């Protein structure tokens, strides 16, 4: 059963998306901000990270960079999908530049997101 780390500060978003993923057969761990996300990612054991970009303290881009820095030492790579409600052109490039493997917008279209998750789980970037 794939384990997903969901980093999301909005309680209802966390509740909604995690429940929907659990229904689809994933095991979901939750982090409420960037610091917690980075710490949990470093502890390991996840197959994929869903990272909201609008986080308090350190935002999703910064958190992604920190996760990638930590991995560079350990030689690992967990795929990260950036989530954003901004939906601005250029967001995708920005997310990729920060070290994300893919990008999706809110409101989440679950089927589309699941497709991206499956793609990354099958063939890690």
């Amino acid at each position, binding site marked *: 059963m794939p384990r997903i780390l969901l980093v999301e500060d*909005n309680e*209802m*978003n966390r509740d*909604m*998306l995690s*429940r*929907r993923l659990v*229904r689809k057969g994933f095991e979901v761990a939750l982090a409420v901000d960037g610091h917690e996300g980075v710490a949990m990612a470093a502890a390991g054991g996840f197959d994929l990270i869903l990272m909201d970009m*609008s986080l308090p303290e350190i935002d999703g881009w910064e958190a992604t960079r920190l996760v990638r820095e930590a991995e560079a030492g350990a030689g690992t790579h967990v795929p990260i999908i950036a989530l*954003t*409600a*901004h*939906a*601005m*052109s250029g*967001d995708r490039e920005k997310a990729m530049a920060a070290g994300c493997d893919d990008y999706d*917008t*809110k*409101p*989440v279209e*679950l089927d589309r997101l699941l497709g991206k998750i499956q793609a990354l789980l099958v063939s890690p970037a």
Partner: protein
Amino acid sequence: MSGLFTPEAVAELRHELRTPLNLIIGYGEMLLEDATDDERRSALERTLSAGRDLLGLINAAVPPSRGEITAPEFEALRASLREPHARILAATSELLTEEHADGDAEFDRDVRRVRSAAERLMTVELPQGGGASRLAFTVEHPTLEHTSEHGAAPVANILVVDDQEDNRAVLDRRLRRQGHTVECASGGHAALARLRAAPFDLVLLDVLMPDLDGLAVLERLKADPATRDIPVIMISALDDVASVVRCIERGAEDHLPKPFDPVLLRARIGACLEKKRLRDVELEYLREVERVIQAAKAVEAGTYASGDLAEVSHRGDELGRLARVFDAMADHVRAREARLKDQVEALRREIATVTAAAQPDGPREAPTLPSGAVLADRYEIHEEIGSGGMGMVYRALDRQLNEQVAIKTLRAETLADPGVLERFKSEIRLARHISSKHVVRTHDIGEHRGVYYLTMEYVEGITVRSLLDTRGKLGVAPTLAIASQLAQSLAAAHEQGVIHRDIKPQNLLLDATGVLKVMDFGVARLQGHQTHLTEVGTLVGTPSYMAPEQLLSENFDERADLFSMGVVLFECLTGRLPFEGTTIVSIIAHLMRDEAPAPSSLNRDVPADVSALVLRLLSKDPGARPASAAEVVRLLSGLG
């Protein structure tokens, strides 16, 4: 105000709009996956359909490629969102009101989340200010969440009354973001209980509620004096004119239709609170004015306690200053009254010791009017009570008014000149206008068989002359009692333009309680004509009390009375005149030439400030004397 908003602001705006949509669609889809019965599925499908319409509208208005939006564009977007938003509210209402025997708490909770997300969507605002302020906006207010707070709207304690939890939650969040403190009540009875328990600045009141509806709550609020002044804004989905009229007629400040426009809500609340603030300020001001008025009445009644105005005197404005000045003044007046009372009491004791031995003033002459004579069919002469430079004084009965009067006859020769008589009459008329309890009232002037006479108030008492003749000199306190009453008398006369011209101990009457009354206002005019130095041969009596300028010319003013007062006080304190002589000429020479000795040098009991004031009154130059009798009143109030 069609300012452009920056790409950062637009990104945040998009985030603000899409986040609730994410919840509407996410929860909606999840609920639909679980839903088995058709009614639920139908309502959820309508919810999702409305949610996707919302997304379409938002994407069309702010597509990912756009970095800008104008305020009118945003307003148009917001207006377009209302219809799908209303569909979500309607569909989710069905989901919440349908009967579920199984008590599906999680289902209800998720539906409510959809509803509250939809409400939140409608509260999204553009940052305040346009392009000009966008730099400050992007630096200091990086998210929309925070930008909606700024602006200097008044902050208040608001009660939100709505039976719908979502509505309460939305308003609660919205208002808190604007800096208000918010309490919520879920029904009419709960609202009334809250309002009785704590003060609120504003009530937002839903009209349709199951237990006690908004209109009933409004009526009760407005009927109770304790809550009458709290403004109420009614909130209702009933947007028809009749409904609005009903609310306003029952005393609501305003009415807002649901779903409410957040900008409108904010503006109306701001206006409401400002109106209330102004009314509160006005009411408080009127209350404090009333306190000052009450305090003034209390001072008059002698029941004022200093500090009664403490609540008002902390104010920083004119009223506060007035209260502080008033407080200090009231203290001062009380202290002065207490002093004056002591002084008059001392004077009264002096009077009591001499009244038994008192003799009529001046040399005896043969009475012009025999006892029992009746003047003008009205005044019945009882006895002769004195004589002065101008004639005799009698006690008489006014038969018309059945009261005692004093009658003073005037020597025929003084009125020989008809011009003098006319001037005298007009002076007497003027003197009658003086309103002071320290003036012997002059009633009338008449003629009886060639004898002119004045009728006056009869005062049973003695003159200061008698007092001095018997006691030699008076103490400081009795002298100050005479001084302050004499000064008040002169102030009242001078205010009417009347100069006494002949202030001397013979003209100062004291009754048994120590009240001083000055006689012969206006009378000295008759003498004055004859008494200046150029006609010294016809001087009547002594010039000892006259001001130098009065002796030299007709051109003098009311300050001459102040000089005379100084002589009287000098005599009271020292038992002698400031300018002594054995002949009139030597007295006048001293008076014109020499400085008076300090009373304190002749009587060690006289305090320096009292002595100094007497010397100021005795200044040769009128300009060196206190400027007026009123000024002397003021100076005396600071002594003793």
